């Protein structure tokens, strides 16, 4: 088992004819992902990497009713429209790779997706990978090996880094979910954890957070209330970031947003979650937890 994506996931690529879209279509196909169609308005009838291209999601679904997921490479200006199209046509899982979508637009389609019961991952996400089964995203496959550890990360490259360090210690990943670096995303930590909690194969979950927002604190509170039973190990980036600055996608540091490094680590520890000081401590902590899980 794995969460969100596996070998049964049938993918349509939105924005397949663009530079990013076509490149990653090939990469995903190489990995074994089941890509069945692509969409670019006006480019219907062509092919990319052997995959048929359609003018609209409805056309794609009419030809391939088996489609269950979409990955979006459409530029920021047109991304929201493409996402609404997929939600409205009933696609269950929508992975939004696009960066720089205005946050007001994200807010709207994320709320809408909850009503329609579509799952949105991202925007600004590397995507989701279930090693050995499928990747619906842009992550480099080489850093991921199959296993029983779930990863939920706000940062893409840290997700690769952690998975790689695990691999070097002989530890593998069930599914790694990149939540996306934007201030508002479709899945948050709690919602992503709900999938892992239900997944028989996942024994422990690594949560990679960063400064900004209060998601980690909110997760910690839910964990403390006993919402989840599986062990969680956390790592928070940004301990040395000066206050009031935007560090990459670490979110708008608007006043009144407390999400500091200290408050996050404190509430996580307070909820019985192990917090790694350095990335390189993670495999060790996982090893410890797995041992206690096995007992």
């Amino acid at each position, binding site marked *: 088992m794995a969460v969100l994506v596996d070998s049964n996931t049938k993918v349509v690529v939105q924005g397949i004819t663009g530079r990013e879209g076509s490149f990653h279509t090939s990469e995903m196909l190489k990995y074994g992902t089941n890509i069945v169609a692509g969409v670019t308005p006006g480019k219907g009838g062509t092919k990319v990497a052997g995959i048929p291209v359609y003018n609209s999601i409805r056309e794609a679904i009419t030809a391939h009713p088996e489609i269950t997921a979409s990955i979006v490479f459409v530029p920021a200006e047109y991304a929201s429209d493409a996402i609404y199209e997929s939600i409205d046509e009933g696609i269950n899982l929508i992975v939004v790779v696009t960066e720089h979508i*205005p*946050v007001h637009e994200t807010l709207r389609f994320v709320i809408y997706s909850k009503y329609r019961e579509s799952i949105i991952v991202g925007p600004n996400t590397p995507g989701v990978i279930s090693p050995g089964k499928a990747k619906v995203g842009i992550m480099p496959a080489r850093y991921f090996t199959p296993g029983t550890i779930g990863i939920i990360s706000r940062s893409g490259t840290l997700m690769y*880094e952690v998975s*790689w360090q695990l691999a070097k210690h002989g530890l593998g990943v069930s599914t790694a979910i990149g939540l996306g670096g934007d201030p508002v995303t479709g899945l948050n930590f709690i919602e992503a954890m709900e999938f892992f909690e239900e997944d028989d194969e996942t024994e422990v979950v690594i949560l*990679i957070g960063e400064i900004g*927002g209060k*998601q980690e604190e909110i997760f910690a509170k839910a964990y403390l209330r006993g919402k989840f039973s599986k062990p969680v190990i956390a790592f928070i980036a940004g301990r040395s970031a000066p206050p009031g600055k935007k*560090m990459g996608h670490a979110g708008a540091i*608007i006043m009144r947003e407390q999400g500091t490094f200290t408050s996050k680590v404190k509430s996580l520890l307070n909820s019985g979650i192990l917090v790694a000081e350095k990335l390189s401590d993670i495999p060790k902590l996982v090893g410890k937890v797995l041992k206690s899980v096995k007992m």
Partner: protein
Amino acid sequence: MILHEYEARNLFLRYGIKVEDACLADSPDKAKECCRNVPAPYIVKAQVRVWSRGKLGLIKTADTPREVYRVAKDMLSKKFKGRNIDKILISHRVKTKRELYLSILLDRDSRSYTIMAGTLGGVDIEDIAKSYPESILQINVNPLIGLNPYVARYLSSHLKVDKESIWNLVGNMYRLFIDNYCELVEVNPLVLSGNELIAVDRKIVIDDSAARIYSHLRGFWEQYLEELTKEERLSIIHGFSYVELEGNIGIVGNGAGLTMTSMDLIYLEGGRPGAFLDLGGGANAERVRIALEILMKNPRIEIIFVNILGGITRCDEVARGIVSLVSKYRKPIVVRLAGLRENEGRKILENAGIKVFSQLQEAIREVVYYGSTGG
């Protein structure tokens, strides 16, 4: 991007919100001239993009045109964060019955907008929130629903102002907030003068992603870019996140998380980060070269740490980009590189005398050592 206060004032006017009399000046003479159209007494405010100007001495009062001239001269001769203060706003100091606080912001965690209304305005809202939390009313507004009439009932009863006036004001602020893709629209203080509500000082933060693509925000965006240093501008054009810090180690990484973690590790090992540069997605050779050049030109930076965990990027290309710069600028570089054609890249770099690591922790130690010994 934080708008200048005068830009915010213009937006407020355009959305039918009552503001105080005011006039923008870029010289002491112009400031004095402003006083012809703006009645005394005065308040003179430096137009800089920053929070809490009051605390930073960037807001001064004046009672006469002569005093305005003096204050203006002083203010316009100052620098703020390395830049000249080149614009000031001469505002009429409104007589007030009461000073209130009102803002609308985008709350990422509750996935909604939040209206905050305070009965104690004119002071720092964060201080008020700590000392008098009960003075602040919060109302969440769902983006798909918008303002409901009950919001006016709640605000009117909390702020003790007329329901219709506050409904008009909050409605106009909300339209402004939505139309301009704001992260924050704030009035502080909101002044009750007679029976009128006047937005006497304002702050607007606009979402950069929207300003980048929507033409009705282009004016603000271009003004913003114009005020940046060449390096900052270059960063924005290429989608980098560039932040200058106090130390001597420049950090380049792909992905905010990885770059921040590099910074954290350097800090934990006792090094002093001097600049943070996140390449964002797509770390190709050209982007790496441009980013490196920004750091090379930063005089405070003595050593550069490059952390590329690419995977899809061809490492040999990146390596050639780095090598071409090193010969030109002669600052030491430590590289952590992983990805496609990693070995080829490593060879190219090592041939040019650049230390390459594949383990992050080892690379960090090397950088910190270099950094503390001066390279």
